[in-house]
């Protein structure tokens, strides 16, 4: 049986599945239920400074994007940080941590970009016994209008400065949570590192309007006929988050920095993918908000089974294993040639591959009178669109042409040697192949 325990910045947890700072972790009641359900850790919903707490809207806070059968693919929210008092939150955190010493408990914090504000709150958080803090430099709505959240995360200098204060006034690990609402995520990550951050977590939510009400002409979620952008999350954002994680894992100035992966993690498989791109653990929110805390059971059993099947005895075994295989386009092997192959036994003859290829791609699928669909190797560029639109898994696959064979499309022999764009004759800036 694979060992799922993780040691992230010295913080131990029985599994890599943490709940992200969000509504599910807003109070003691929920967090206790989460730990009972089996979650390895929790990032407590963001605390604000002493004083009257923030207020939330009293209308809808969430918008949604559905797939077939109203499956939640994306969620956005306009909820702010905790709207409960700092004192109550701190008391609850203290109690919960005492009762669950084996679980990770991180406190998310967002206070104004002033040293005094951080200096005031950090000792009080430290006194709870929580394992670390996460700096919320990511929330894209509401708080950012007040100079916090994403407004800090979008300015590397601010990140560096605040992180430094935190390292100064707090003794335990400091994680900086990054906003994706920037052009190059490596810049804020590097700033966090310069400020002394122990880790980064990403991504926070993405600026979004999920839909527009065509009767009222208001963006959703709509509050009395008006809407504002919210933070987008859920399965739809996973590809964006994975890419950003990979960039931080690969960049020279941030490589090796511990990463907590966030963004659309719904199954054990999603979690494993994040870990292979360099994350030490993952944080989950939308999946829990859609299905409840119980989903962690599938994540634990699935990851465990896969690790056993692959012979991985610990999370470290496969952590970062996909990072070396993440490269720039220019280094992809142009001598790798594949063709789509349709498994006629698995094919249900829906013809979606044909429609997609014929109308929008390379006219590389033939359709016979009796609805047999076959790939025309002379036309197929192996774009994968037919694979992507086929409703039957593994019915269409891409198969590599063996070196030495002739590609019927180009009439050229498939070369055995790796060759990329940097040496390609069509590239004006090509360097001679060695």
């Amino acid at each position: 049986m694979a060992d799922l325990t993780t040691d992230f910045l010295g913080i131990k947890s029985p599994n890599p599945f943490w709940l992200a700072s969000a509504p599910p972790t807003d109070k003691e009641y929920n967090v206790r239920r989460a730990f009972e359900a089996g979650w390895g850790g929790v990032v407590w919903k963001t605390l604000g400074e002493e004083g009257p707490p923030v207020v939330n809207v009293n209308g809808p806070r969430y918008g949604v994007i559905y797939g077939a059968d109203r499956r939640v693919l994306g969620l956005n929210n306009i909820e702010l940080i905790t709207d409960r008092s700092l004192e109550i939150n701190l008391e609850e955190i203290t109690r919960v941590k005492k009762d669950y010493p084996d679980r990770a408990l991180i406190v998310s914090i967002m206070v104004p970009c002033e040293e005094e504000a951080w200096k005031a709150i950090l000792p009080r958080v430290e006194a709870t016994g929580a394992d670390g803090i996460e700096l919320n430099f990511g929330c894209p709505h509401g708080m950012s209008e007040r100079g916090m959240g994403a407004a800090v995360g979008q300015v590397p200098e601010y990140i560096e400065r605040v992180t430094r204060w935190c390292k100064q006034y707090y003794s335990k690990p400091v994680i900086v949570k990054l906003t994706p609402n920037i052009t190059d995520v490596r810049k804020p990550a590097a700033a966090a590192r310069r400020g002394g951050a122990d880790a980064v977590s990403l991504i926070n939510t993405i600026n979004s309007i999920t839909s527009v009400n065509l009767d009222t002409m208001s963006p959703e979620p709509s509050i009395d006929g008006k809407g504002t952008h919210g933070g987008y999350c859920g399965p739809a954002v996973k590809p964006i988050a994975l890419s950003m994680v990979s960039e931080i894992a690969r960049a020279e100035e941030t490589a090796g920095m511990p990463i907590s992966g966030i963004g659309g993690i719904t199954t054990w498989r999603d979690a494993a993918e994040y870990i292979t791109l360099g994350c030490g653990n993952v944080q989950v929110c939308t999946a829990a908000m859609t299905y409840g805390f119980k989903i962690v059971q599938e994540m634990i059993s699935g990851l465990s089974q896969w690790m056993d099947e692959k012979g991985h005895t610990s999370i470290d075994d496969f952590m970062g294993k996909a990072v070396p295989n993440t490269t720039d386009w220019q280094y992809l092997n142009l001598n790798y040639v594949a063709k789509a192959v349709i498994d006629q036994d698995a094919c249900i003859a829906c013809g979606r591959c044909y429609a997609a290829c014929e109308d929008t791609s390379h006219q590389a699928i033939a359709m016979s009178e009796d609805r047999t669909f076959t790939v025309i190797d002379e036309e197929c560029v192996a774009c994968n669109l037919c694979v992507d639109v086929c409703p039957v898994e593994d019915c269409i696959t891409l198969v590599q042409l063996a070196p030495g064979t002739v590609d019927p499309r180009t009439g050229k022999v498939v070369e055995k040697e790796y060759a990329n764009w940097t040496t390609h004759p069509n590239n004006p800036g090509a360097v001679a192949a060695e």
Partner: protein
Amino acid sequence: MNNTFTPGVVPARLGTDELQQNFTDLHAPLSGHEAAVAADRCYFCHDAPCVTACPTDIDIPLFIRQISTGTPEAAATTIFDMNILGGMCARVCPTEDLCEQACVRELAEGKPVEIGRLQRFATDKLMNKGVMPFTRAQATGKKVAVVGAGPAGLSCAHRLAMLGHDVTVYDAMPKAGGLNEYGIAAYKSTGDFAAREVDWLCSIGGIEIKPGFALGNELKIDELVGDFAAVFLAVGLGGVNALGIAGDDKDGVADAVSFIQELRQASDLTTLPVGRNVVVIGGGMTAVDAAVQSKLLGADTVTIAYRRGRDAMSASRYEQDLAASHGVKLLFNVQPKAIHGNGAVAEIELEYTATENGKLTGTGEMIRVLADQVFRAIGQTLATEAGLKLDGRKLAITGAGRTSLAGVWAGGDCAAGGDDLTVTAVAEGRDAAMDIHATLMGSN
């Protein structure tokens, strides 16, 4: 008070409530949520097999996508564009043999997209609003006669009216609708749907319905040809085949179509008599409809006796199972030899059959089945040929329903070729209308 075991052919074997429950919709209409879930399963296939399988070529993937995007009214228009009786077809089509059999998800999972029920969802939406999505073209001044207000005749009439012609629809019966009104099992067309559909269809205008006119009696073909620019015959099959065996004339022996007709027109099902032991001779949809409804009226035993094997039965496997699930016994490879009884039928004698060299013969082995009611459902025949050329026992046609007489078209069950299905009749009526239009407007 009678019950299931009361001997003879008697009414009120079941109470009012039970009868009402027995004759509600066979398939309940989909709710909005159910329709959304069902529509989500459609793959929007390219050149979809379901469309190929539909005799009226309804663009099924398009209408299902229109349902899934919240525009069932547009979906209904897509359906009605090809099949103006899409509402009835949604209820009576043997979808298990047509679109749903061809659905790729039938192949993939043994569970097709519920096309029939989705079609009903869409068509109900628009029809319940009383919206006729089509308008008439500029008047052509041409008059066309349609004889028979069944599916073929109504389909033809609507299309002709839409194209700007003035249509007179004659029918022998007091109500329009043909088999939709008089012939389909009651649980497939509840709530007077057939009559509502006729009213809705005629709301396009330009269609006059004249009941009580039968071809060969009140109507003569040569007069029609003289009075109208074109004639479309859709008279169905008015005659019923006899059993041709001893005792065929005993009390309690009747035509299944008459029984179904009485049932459809009955305002109070408790007044409708049915036997304790019912035997239906035949293997088509009419046999199944009569058998199942006998059971639903409270008959104790109901047997369908069919002379060939299960595979040869023209009622679909789904219909056979429907009968079996209602407790109808299916007897295969038996043919009627004699009906016994003193005045009224008491027993039917059947002989087992075998097929040798492609020919059905009796084996000599007999079986007797208790019966106080026997229904003949062994096919119907053309009531009058009206002097037209026949192809077998039906009106011969070429192209889109052209008969041997110029200016006269035919379609539906009375015309040769095609399955005797509502949906086929609709297609034939529609296509004949297009051909009539082209002929009248001189573009043929």
